[in-house]
């Protein structure tokens, strides 16, 4: 087996986990007491968190809708988490009924849950892999099959890269994935940023520091640099609600307070787009 580890990681229910904490923020019950305790503490310090997560989820929806509208039928969702209302394949299929989605996560519980939810869906796949080992990730048959054939692929890295510490060289990882994408593909990115709520950076990172998924909020420039090699789609790298809002009033006051930067970039297609 390719790159199989000698000792698989043990599942630990005693420490909170990013996927389940996120579900709790969104009002779900796919979580355990340890997750809820941590989420409650985090919300106490930063009451905007549920709103931020909703805004994140809404951006994911808008970006998928936009790309489906641009003709994308293949989606690679890395750090997909626990399926919640409006999963990527459902959104995409409202525009592209044949849309194929490969969900990737490194959390075995999120993967098992996704598998249970998606077992009937012939066009969705769930893969257990880690973004920090791109070679192995790309070697997974379902991932390789999605990237094969030359059709553009939408790579979703939504609210996942801030779980990749600097030591793991996140920019190098993204570049590696970029190089594996067919021409005309897209990158969808959402990343927690330091500038929106500088006062929250320290306390929030502290809370996550104790989990198995510590959080690294990054600066604007660093986040924009993930789009190296991509051409940014309008309006570029902006705060969560500023990206192609459903209506002008949907932006809301002070979008920077949501502390999430987002953007969509495209690779040049080899031939002129249809």
């Amino acid at each position, binding site marked *: 087996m390719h790159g*199989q*580890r*000698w*000792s*698989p*990681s*043990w*599942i630990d*229910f005693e420490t909170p986990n990013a996927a*389940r904490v996120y579900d709790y923020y*969104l*009002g*779900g*019950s*796919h*979580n*355990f007491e340890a997750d809820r305790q941590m989420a409650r503490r985090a919300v106490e310090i930063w009451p905007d968190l549920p*709103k931020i997560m*909703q805004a994140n*989820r*809404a951006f*994911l*929806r808008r970006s998928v*809708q936009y790309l489906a509208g641009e003709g994308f039928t293949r989606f690679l969702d890395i750090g997909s988490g*626990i399926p*919640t*209302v*409006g999963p990527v394949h459902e959104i995409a299929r409202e525009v592209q009924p044949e849309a194929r989605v490969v969900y990737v996560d490194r959390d*075995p*519980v*999120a*993967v*098992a*849950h996704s*598998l*249970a*939810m998606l077992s009937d869906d012939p066009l969705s796949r769930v893969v257990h892999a880690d973004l920090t080992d791109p070679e192995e990730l790309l070697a997974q048959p379902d991932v390789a099959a999605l990237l094969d054939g030359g059709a553009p692929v939408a790579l979703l890295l939504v609210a996942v890269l801030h779980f990749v510490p600097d030591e793991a060289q996140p920019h190098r990882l993204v570049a590696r994935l970029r190089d594996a994408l067919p021409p005309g593909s897209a990158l969808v990115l959402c990343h927690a940023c330091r500038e929106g709520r500088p006062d929250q950076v320290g306390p929030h990172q502290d809370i996550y520091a104790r989990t198995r998924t510590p959080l690294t909020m990054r600066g604007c420039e660093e986040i924009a640099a993930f789009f190296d090699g991509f051409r940014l789609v309008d309006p570029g790298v902006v705060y969560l609600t500023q990206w192609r809002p*459903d*209506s002008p*009033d*949907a932006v809301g006051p002070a979008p920077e307070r949501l502390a999430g930067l987002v953007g969509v970039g495209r690779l040049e297609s080899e031939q002129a787009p249809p």
Partner: protein
Amino acid sequence: MNGPPAADAPRPSFPERWTRLLRAHGSALHPRKIDALGSRTADLVLSGRADQAAADLVNAHFTDPEMLVQAVELLRFTGFQDPDPVGAFAAGWATSLRERTLVQQESIRTAADTARHEVERALHASEARFQAVFEHAAIGIGVGSLDGEILAANRSLLEMFGARLDDLRGRRVTDLVHPEDTPEVWDSYEQLVAGERDNFQCDKPYYRQDGEVVWTHLTVSLIRDEDGRPRYQVAMMEDITDRYRLQERLHHQATHDPLTGLPNRAAFFERLEDLLATAPPGSRFGLCYVDLDRFKIVNDSLGHAAGDQLLIEVAGRLSGALVPQGHLVARLGGDEFVVLLERCRGEHDAVAAARTVLSALQEPIRIDGHQLAVGASVGVLERPVGTITPGAAVRAADLTLYRAKEAGGARWTLYDARTNAESVGRYTISVRMPLALERGEFFLEYQPLCALSDGSLAAVEALVRWRHPLLGVLGPDEFVPAAEETGIILPLGRWVLEQACAQAADWQRRFGPLAPQLNVNITARQARSKGLLADVGRILAETGLEPSLLQLELTESSALEPRDESLRVLQGVVDKGVTLCVDDFGTGWSNLAHLRDLPLTGLKLSSAFIGDPASQDAASGVSWRIVSGLVSLADSLGLTLTAEGVETPDTAERLRSLGCDWGQGWLFGRPAAPEALEALILARADKSVN
């Protein structure tokens, strides 16, 4: 669009306000979807199915408690009559939320269980895989505790050791020593179990269960736990017995003569070089160079097969007689053998070995019905280590052998420096010397002459050496006689004078008054040549050396005639301010008249006169009396007397008390490169202060 209503607009309808409430809740859903959800659930409320409306909202993640409060308020405020939707909505909300929660909890637990099983399965698979790798690996693997107890061993390892697991388990790693283990193996082992290194590799032999030896290429690694603490040691070994034996065989082939099985020429030289490089100073060694006297006749008359038979028989006899005494017997090629005595107490030992060689070959050898009395000649060399290179030693023994042959064979001859020098000259020296001079194979070393009164440096003697490409470094004894004979001494002597004077002039410039006097040897032939005078003048002028700092030592290889040409040449040299002394005085100069005829400044007393002052024997007594007589002779002629061969402080003290001026010898310093003398030169400064 759904903008805020104008101030004077009519009050919005219930569905409108209901939908606005949903929008305010916040959701990831598209606003159109929220609108649709709003009108659908408003309709449900209006048609009396408020509980279903609540269920739909919960399912769409509208679960915020704040939302329930506001919805109930709106329902109440709208003032529905019969049926009142408030109770139904609240109950429907609570039920759906509870159900949804239960479902989700159930599903996440199931997912967690599945994941856990998956992990366990993977863990088992990984363990099973590991077990399989361990068991079936082609290399031997053993696991041990840090205190050296063997805990596990795989099949390959057991096969290598010819053992069952029970034979090994519980034994100590440290029991597995083998006499051929290098000390580093166990040093590395100790460091590893102490956590000081993480692995080591080596080739190591083990005893198998049946007592045979298995050679392994061994890698031992330290296994640490998650916190980095050492836990186990893992040994991985590859059976290299075949490779090892092959290597041994190749080595044997490379170092042994295939015909006789004796060590060959390469092995002999390796051993000799090793000996000369590592033997403690002062120890001595011996060589017997053996050559059969009538081998060629046997070979020519009875054929090669018989010749080979003969050599095998000779090899057997020689090793039978000499190896038990601890000597090495090697075949150098053809019918030449050599015996190496690694520890020799003196010439008698070497001569005894030569006699053993001759008597071993005395009995005729029987081959194909013939009784062959081959006989042999032996050249014997016996020297202290550190005085000769391996090449020169073998060459000397070979030349000594030729003297035995020339004398008719069937005998041994002992190495003699003088006759050897002649032979060396004849065979290899004279022909090569002009080329050597051109190629820069000569170089100079300098030996200090010190005042016996306080040990301070008085002069240095330049000594010429030849780095001979075949014979190694040769001293003047070995080639100057030949050079003298052929006349090459003239250009060589000029070169020596140039080099030495340049060196002395350099010292003169750098050390001023501390610079020592320079002594340079000249031979009789040089002394007779008219060129000497011109050379000395030119060299002094070119180098800028103060003439009084140069002293020529006249070696006495042949006596000067009373009205010899040389007297005039030497007088001319002295007129330039250069001084003159006689070297090796007392060994060849029968004619004391020279002391009167030559313009001398000093005498150098041959080391032959300098005995052990502690010795009681008569010869030594006579020597000292001669020294004493020469001291007064030198004194009365106003000559500086230098004693050569001064090796001990006692000797120096005895000479000093007799009134001898200077001493030269190992006590004061061996011949060395010029830089090595600079410390002595500088030390003169301290001496001159007191």
